């Protein structure tokens, strides 16, 4: 099987995939928190804006979003390079789902906590940052873990907008060697390995979050 000569190309593609995924997760978390908090704490206008963002990016296919931002948007003047476009769209998509996770977790903070905060004269911002979010973050971790894996899988779609990720490299190699079975098997195994790595990473973060003093266990009363 002389496809082993192409392993360097696959490795490069894997690096691109991992980079894009991690970048998209990072930016997506920012989007998730911003829009999740906006939805819960914002006034009627901000809340509606957040709702629209969530509905649009959750309710349309990532495939369509990628093509729209890559081919349609430049025609009205707004154009980024492929990798940036890929990361931003992935992040926006993940953020759409993430904002719902944040919203759900924030809403699940027990009312007594909020009342106690008000009794202690905490401002809304203080309540949010010192009481609600720390407890909510613990709740969010499992769902964010799933979202991370989903983002890794969805990152394969950026190969369709000419980004040289793992799937793109696999396709290129397959086009040269015409050996579909081995190339696609290896690619699937690569993604599987990356998913497992990601899961381990998420578990570690989860443990750190549960242990730290800043994030007390959620008080269920």
């Amino acid at each position, binding site marked *: 099987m002389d496809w082993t000569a192409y392993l360097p190309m696959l490795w490069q593609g894997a690096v691109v995939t991992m980079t894009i995924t991690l970048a998209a997760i990072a930016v997506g978390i920012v989007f998730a928190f911003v829009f999740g908090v906006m939805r819960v704490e914002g006034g009627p206008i901000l809340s509606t804006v957040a709702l629209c963002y969530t509905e649009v990016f959750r309710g349309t296919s990532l495939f369509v979003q990628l093509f729209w931002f890559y081919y349609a948007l430049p025609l*009205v*003047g707004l*154009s980024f390079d*492929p990798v940036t476009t890929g990361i931003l769209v992935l992040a926006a998509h993940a953020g759409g789902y993430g904002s719902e996770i944040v919203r759900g977790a924030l809403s699940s903070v027990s009312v007594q906590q909020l009342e106690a905060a008000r009794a202690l004269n905490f401002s809304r911002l203080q309540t949010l940052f010192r009481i609600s979010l720390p407890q909510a973050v613990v709740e969010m971790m499992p769902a964010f873990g799933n979202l991370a894996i989903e983002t890794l899988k969805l990152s394969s779609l950026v190969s369709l907008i*000419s980004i040289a990720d793992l799937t793109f490299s696999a396709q290129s190699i397959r086009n040269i060697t015409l050996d*579909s079975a081995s190339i696609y098997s290896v690619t699937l195994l690569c993604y599987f390995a990356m998913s497992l790595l990601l899961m381990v990473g998420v578990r570690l973060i989860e443990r750190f979050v549960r242990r730290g003093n800043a994030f007390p266990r959620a008080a269920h009363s």
Partner: protein
Amino acid sequence: MHITKIAGLSALALVVGIASANALTVDEVKQQAYIRAATANEVPYSYMQPDGTSAGIGPDVATAVLKSMGVEEINWTVTPFGTLIPGLKAGRFDFAAAEQNISPERCKQVAFSEPNSSYGEGLLVKKGNPKKLTTYADIAKDPSLKVAVVSGANNVDFLRAVGVKDEQIVFIPANADAIPTVQSRVDAYAATELTVSELAKDQANVEQVAPFTDPIVNDAPVRNYGGFAFRPEDKELRDAFNTALVEFRKTDEYKAILGKYGLSEQSIAAAAAKNVADLCAGK
């Protein structure tokens, strides 16, 4: 309503203004010392090699011509054939070197260079040509036959012109998918003669149809003329490229490049005989 219309139009004018102010000039290209090109990975017209360098009729000629213009570095992007023109218009690259056929339809969207190569059509079929196909019209005769075409390529127009029905046509995303598709899903793959001969090389399961008759469209056998595509607003760049290209066409190096990829003396002469203005007008 009025205000929104005015605001909208001014925004559009501003955007268009910004966009056209960014027309790429030769000096700008020389200053940044590189130019961005696109290929659709179609051997032998324009493709990337595993080591990352470009090769093919288009890239080799483009590299030589640009060198004579003082531009040494070309950054290549691989993009599906159907997205070459949209990508060009979206500013993702500065020219397309995929030897696309210069058609009146495409001329409305992009500014082509003078023709660089000329080629006829071809069919890729299973080994042994079980359906005994010799031309596109044979596919039209049997409605149960299926033929594959790359999405965005104009071979589909020729197929339709000789009577092939839409239900018979399967669109594949890239040229390289042709071999597995012909092996198990369709009866033939319609593309240019060179593309097909390259695909069929050293393949045990597929072969090029020979002898093959070019489809007759508008009472004449089809002949394609491949060229380089630029954005309409980059006229200065295109004209500078054209001047250099026409000069380069007179050299032996040019003939050597085209000959290396399988183009015959006649097709090289045929390309030189046409000019882009005529082709865009449909002559």
